[in-house]
């Protein structure tokens, strides 16, 4: 049985393991003991605080496989309340300029990259890492979307816009051609070094050393241009899944590796549009009768739980759960839960 719950400090060893296993390494999931510990503490604190507007909170969740005798943490994912709460969240915004000449009777479109912190105003899905054994299984969809179900329960804690940065293309030596042509010229650092600096420390150095003017794409190297708005191949499936969920390609790319940012108005996401409140009804016999899988989440911050169950409804739209499921979710008959039926996809959907 797979379950998503808030991460606690006791999950630190598992998080370190997951951070080290990410390909490519994630800026926002540094394999750095103190940094991760601080994040876990911050998350726990945020969950217990009565928050009325999004701020610096970053909520970290783990996916636990409770099937083995000892439950095992096999994935993690975070949700940042506000991408630019403490300091601006910088991206490159792609824009098209029109250069027209009456004299020559021509009109040209010229692409530029402008330093932007527009996405500072969005909430950010980030730090997603899943044990290799579970990739491509429904566990992935569960872990990814559980954050959205949490946000749906506590909309006051988040922005109306959601964003997610996809890692950009790297070559065989894990070098970013975008970084080599662009970032390195300004930061005088290796890609991995700057990624670590940005992950661990403040990012204020970005505004200090970047020129305030847009860059003309045609002037960048072929290598850099070819990866603008790219997605690292290890993340193609994730991007497809996010697009299914309602995310769209944004005008923005990652400042360091040129990777694409996806965005969506929160209320346009599948989870929000198709999520419904149901009272729980315990029915061990009928709970497996759902035709489609559904994500279901309780309505508790500190003891938030999310899992995938068959979408079994009574005639009056109560959600039918087995007593084991109800126990895992920490809910009793008559309590309300949020459930989202997932459209079936080509992948096999196990009964959790």
């Amino acid at each position, binding site marked *: 049985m797979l379950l998503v719950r808030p991460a606690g400090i006791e999950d630190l060893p598992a998080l370190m393991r997951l951070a080290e296993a990410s390909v490519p390494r994630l800026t926002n999931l540094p394999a750095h003991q103190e940094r991760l510990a601080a994040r876990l503490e911050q998350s726990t604190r945020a969950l217990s605080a009565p928050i009325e507007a999004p701020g610096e909170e970053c909520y970290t969740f783990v996916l636990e496989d409770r099937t083995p005798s000892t439950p095992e943490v096999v994935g993690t994912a975070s949700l940042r309340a506000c991408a630019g709460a403490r300091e601006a969240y910088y991206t490159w915004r792609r824009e098209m300029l029109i*250069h*027209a*000449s*009456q*004299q*020559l009777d*021509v009109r*040209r479109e*010229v692409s*530029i990259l402008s330093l932007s912190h527009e996405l500072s105003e969005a909430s950010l899905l980030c730090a997603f890492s899943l044990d290799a054994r579970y990739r491509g299984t429904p566990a992935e969809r569960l872990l990814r979307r559980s954050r959205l179900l949490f946000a749906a329960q506590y909309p006051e804690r988040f922005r109306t816009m959601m964003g997610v940065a996809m890692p950009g293309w790297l070559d065989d030596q894990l070098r970013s051609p975008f970084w080599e*042509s*662009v970032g390195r*010229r*300004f*930061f*005088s*650092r290796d890609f991995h070094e700057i990624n670590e*600096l940005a992950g661990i*420390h*403040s990012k*204020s*150095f970005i505004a*200090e*050393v970047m*020129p305030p*003017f*847009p*860059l*003309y794409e*045609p*002037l*960048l*190297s072929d290598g850099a241009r070819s990866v603008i708005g790219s997605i690292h191949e290890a993340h193609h499936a994730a991007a497809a899944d996010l697009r299914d969920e309602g995310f769209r390609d944004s005008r923005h790319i990652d400042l360091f590796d040129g990777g694409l940012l996806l965005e969506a108005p929160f209320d346009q996401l599948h989870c929000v549009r198709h999520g419904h409140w149901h009272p729980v009804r315990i029915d061990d016999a009928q709970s497996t009768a759902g035709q489609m899988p559904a994500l279901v989440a309780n309505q508790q911050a500190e003891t938030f739980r999310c899992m995938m169950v068959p979408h079994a409804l009574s005639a009056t739209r109560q959600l039918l759960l087995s007593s084991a499921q109800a126990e895992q979710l920490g809910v009793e008959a008559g309590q309300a839960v949020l459930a989202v039926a997932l459209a079936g996809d080509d992948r096999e959907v196990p009964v959790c």
Partner: protein
Amino acid sequence: MLMRPIEFEDLDALQAIAVETGVGFTSLPDNREFLEARIAETREAFDTRDGDPELATAPANYFFVLEDDDLPTGVPRAERIAGCCAIEARVGLDVPFYNYRVGRLAQASRQLDLHRTVDTLFLSSDHTGDAEVCSLYLRPQWREKGARNATLLSRMRWLFMATWRERFPDRVLAEMRGRFDDQGRSPFWESLGRHFFPIDFRHADRLTGLGQKSFIGELMPRYPICTALLPDSARACIGQVHDQTRPALAMLNAQGLRFEGYIDIFDAGPTVEAYLDDVRAVRHSRELEAVISDRAESPGAPRVLASTTQQCATFRACWVGREVEEDRLILHPDEARRLGVESGERLRVLAD
């Protein structure tokens, strides 16, 4: 050899020069109507009376030719013209005058332990209203060593400006042809201009020569460009001259004109510039009295550059093969005839 203002009768010679110089000589396109208009314009400038208030503010072009008056009288006029040069009294008033200025921006980040400056190209019209020396060309058959025809062409302009000082502004510049590769291509253009102008270098250059420059303002990149993002081949052109332009640059440097960070927008060749009153030939030339004497030794090697000071429209300049004696210059009657001066007239001279 005699320097004098161009006349309408020199049109054939001028066109021959335009054909000879080909592209690469921006200010003298092979276009008879244009050249004729150019002569009309320059005649108007020479004919403007001293003291005319227009002189202090209006654009004006002074175009000179070098005539070989040693040739037999039967030689057609077009074959007597050995070269030309010009002074633009105020650039950028009729049509915009563009340069890139290489500026420096400090980048400092305590966190990255970084402090340095980054070179940036800014589109600029800072030289609007300045004077320009330009259009210097000496035909190959007059290039023999020791004749010092090139020096005469280049240097006589300073004497002209010193004598008719009120016709010129405080600053003067010269634009030098930039670096080209073995195939005759400008690496700077290939990396930069080509991406913005849907025409080839020669075409762009020719339009500029014709004064049809509005396409530049329409299509130029309007944001500053960090040179760090340009390929090495383009960066290596910034402020560098074409091999064939080195002697001309050396002559201007010797006069005190310096590269102050302005380059050509197409080929990145340097603009050299100075305050007119600081130019060596202006500072060191002086007025003295002409004394015509039959007993003067006949003209020998070029020693002193002499020019007339009475009337702008009948300006003449040539080498005199004799040193200045106290406050007078002895002229052989042949030299006096060449310059069109009478005994007692004031000359402006520059010893070497």
